[in-house]
């Protein structure tokens, strides 16, 4: 039995911040229902490439697929109040956990806020994930994680000191909030088991992101130091960077923090004469001449592939690695060893690599097991068999466009 088997989760959620929390739950056995509507499908289906063969289609999105494997997908047009509201409440009454990531205030407008829902499901666990939180002067400001990563300081710390900030791919901060949202739900499930009480959880993606910055926030408050971007440099290591390797746009990374790391690196390079120069003798002097140091190291690495460098240096106990590309991560021997990707067949996408959790429980297997659902694929099954609507009720709701 998988750890979360029997736990029923409903997502009034789209994009990443809500649904990927559900993905982590479904991967460990929960039943997760992703609610969409034909008039308003998940934004990842509707307008986020990639689409298979660059042909737009609601069931062709790689991003939606990545975030929603194993879920049940139903449609419910929430604009069709009051019937849609009633139906939504029946679904919540059936569930254990609700995940929503609408803009704050939306669930209340729909009559589906925590206060309303706990009346029909007193021990409900409900996660509201938003950009800036459910309360406060900016609560209603809608935004994307890709930009919130700037408000939370991440992009200010990415790039060179004399250049612009550099983009962090995708909604970086959303996936930080995902981990915290999942932790919150899991802890709440444990608490409910012991006390019979549910809870509402308000995660601001912004505030979860700032958790990752704690030391530099303290540094500013105490020392007045404003941390800023500094390429690949690190105050406690030299060399510390990415170096060019044999092949097209191919790179390795090397870092040496102790003198013994440096000595091992010199040996691995064959103790060339330049390594004996006094300007490279200590960490401090290497830091002072880091541009020249990087050039020298780079001149050495260009003669080898990134894999050769990595294997050679790691064998000598020196930290080094390959800058894997988005192609390499599918063939990386370590990720392969961990069976990080699960290849499943999708009717419109074809073969797709779904992603396993980044942690393995050694006794309890995890998903993915089933591909992501097509839009509304499980309407009949869910509404009739799981929720218990009669055929007549179901057909009426379909005819009225409540189930669209």
């Amino acid at each position, binding site marked *: 039995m998988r*750890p979360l088997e029997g736990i029923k989760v409903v997502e009034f959620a789209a994009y990443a911040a809500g649904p*990927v929390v559900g993905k982590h739950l479904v991967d*460990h056995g929960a039943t997760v229902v992703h609610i969409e509507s034909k008039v308003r499908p998940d934004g990842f289906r509707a*307008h986020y*490439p990639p*689409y*298979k063969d660059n042909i737009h289609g609601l069931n062709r999105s*790689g*991003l939606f697929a990545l*975030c929603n494997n194993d879920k049940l997908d139903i449609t419910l047009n929430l604009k069709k109040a009051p019937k849609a509201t009633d139906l939504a409440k029946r679904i919540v009454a059936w569930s254990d956990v609700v995940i929503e990531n609408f803009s704050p205030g939306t669930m209340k407008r729909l009559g589906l806020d925590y206060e309303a829902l706990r009346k029909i499901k007193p021990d409900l666990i409900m996660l509201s994930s938003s950009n800036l939180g*459910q309360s406060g*002067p*900016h609560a209603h*400001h809608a935004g*994307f994680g*890709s930009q919130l990563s*700037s*408000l939370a300081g991440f*992009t*200010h710390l990415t790039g060179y000191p004399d250049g612009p*900030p*550099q*983009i*962090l*791919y995708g909604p970086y901060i959303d996936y930080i909030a995902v*981990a915290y949202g999942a*932790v919150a739900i899991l802890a709440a499930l444990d608490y409910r088991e*012991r006390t019979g009480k549910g809870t509402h959880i308000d995660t601001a993606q912004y*505030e979860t992101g*700032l958790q*990752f*910055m*704690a*030391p*530099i*926030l*303290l540094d500013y408050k105490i020392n007045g130091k*404003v941390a800023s971007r500094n390429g690949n440099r690190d105050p406690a290591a030299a060399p510390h960077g*990415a170096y060019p390797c044999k092949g097209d746009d191919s*790179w390795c*990374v090397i*870092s040496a923090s102790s003198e013994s790391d440096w000595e091992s690196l010199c040996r691995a390079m064959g103790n060339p004469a330049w390594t004996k120069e006094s300007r490279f003798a200590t960490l401090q002097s290497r830091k002072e001449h880091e541009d020249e140091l990087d050039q020298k190291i780079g001149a050495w690495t260009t003669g080898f592939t990134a894999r050769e460098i990595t294997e050679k240096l790691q064998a000598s106990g020196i*930290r*080094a*690695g390959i800058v894997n*590309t*988005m*192609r390499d*991560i*599918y063939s990386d021997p*370590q990720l392969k060893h961990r069976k990080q990707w699960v290849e499943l067949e999708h009717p419109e*996408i074809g073969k797709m690599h779904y992603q396993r*959790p*980044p*942690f*393995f*429980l*050694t*006794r*309890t297997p995890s998903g993915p097991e089933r591909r992501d659902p097509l839009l509304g694929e499980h309407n009949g099954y869910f509404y009739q068999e799981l929720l218990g609507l009669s055929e007549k009720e179901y057909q009426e709701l379909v005819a009225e466009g409540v189930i669209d």
Partner: protein
Amino acid sequence: MKPRAGFLSPYRILDLTDELGFLCGKVLGDLGADVIKIEKPGGDPARKIGPFFRNQSDPEKSLYWFGFNNNKRGITLNLESARGRELFARLVARADFLIESFIPGYLDRLDLGYAALSRINPRLVHTSITPFGQSGPYSRFRASDIEIMAMSGCMSLTGDPERAPLRITFPQSYQWTASYASVGTLVAHLHRQRTGEGQQVDVSAQACMLWAFSHAHTFWDLNRHLEKRAGSFMTGRSITGAKMRVFWPCKDGYLNFIIYGGEAGRKTNQALVEWMDSKGMAPEFLKKKEWKSFNIAAVTQEEIDRMEEPISRFFQDVAKKEFFEEVIKREMLGYPVASVEEIFQDPQLEFRKFWQSIDHPELGTSILYPGGFAKFSEGPCKIWRRAPLIGEHNEEVYCGELGMKGEEVEKLKQEGAI
């Protein structure tokens, strides 16, 4: 000290992590778990990581330590001594969780691996956090942040195409790894609560970082298109391959603004043009643009360049604070590229009482911390205690809980066991 409440208050966690795993115990501690940080006698080497309180390099003044080890008590213990291992076994017998980040095989060599510990405590959830996982070809590889960022693929997506791939200057992969480790830890916990069965959780930092770049790899998977670092530009939004500017120089730094599509994007574009027009800086073609029919997924580079030129000129005279106020007021997408200084000025965080003042009597001051990671209607999520000093709770734990006498503890100190 106030008693701990919080969802996880019944549980005891032993934390033997280095910086790769610090945040795991802290996250669970925010929810009230009793986390005991176990350090080598003399203190954890990570206490040497800066920055430092008033720039005084001192193992009791590391802000890195303060930031990620609050909500933990601290004891010292030498696992490499027989007496230390004996004490450790006694602690494990009473613990619910063990979190560690030793190189795979290290604990086995001390006969303290999961197999041995589960004999002492079959209910134990043992979370092992390493750069690459417990087994496999790279499992013995050494890695710090930059190697994890490289091997996960993150760096291939970050930086200027003409220069080397980049990491984020303040290391991020440790926090990603440890926070996802806390998810795995609680999944195993729920399994234990149902079945009574503990287990080992094997966390890979490389795998955790795969989530940090979202879906970039799916472009390869679906269409054999390789997403790469694009500097300050966003790619992957238009099937024509058009790039959109993300970072715009402004009066006092940079702004994050993107010409988006979709409903929110169209609304933003319209609102920006109105704002520009209010200052007489909106060209006719932008004012006349039919945003309703604007399709980002098919837009060409030429169209994007033409729109970005006047926007760029407009932003040059806008300050970050003004931009932030206007995007809130006008309901536009976009944020300033904030530094830690500006984050502390954000009224939203102040309203939500995000910052929490924690007493540091040993320093004769209190410090403002980022507070709990979420707000719960039931039960608090917050900082309950500052990070421990070296061996601060030795007496409390060894005498108060294991029932040892003061002189025994003293003897263990002399033997180097604690």
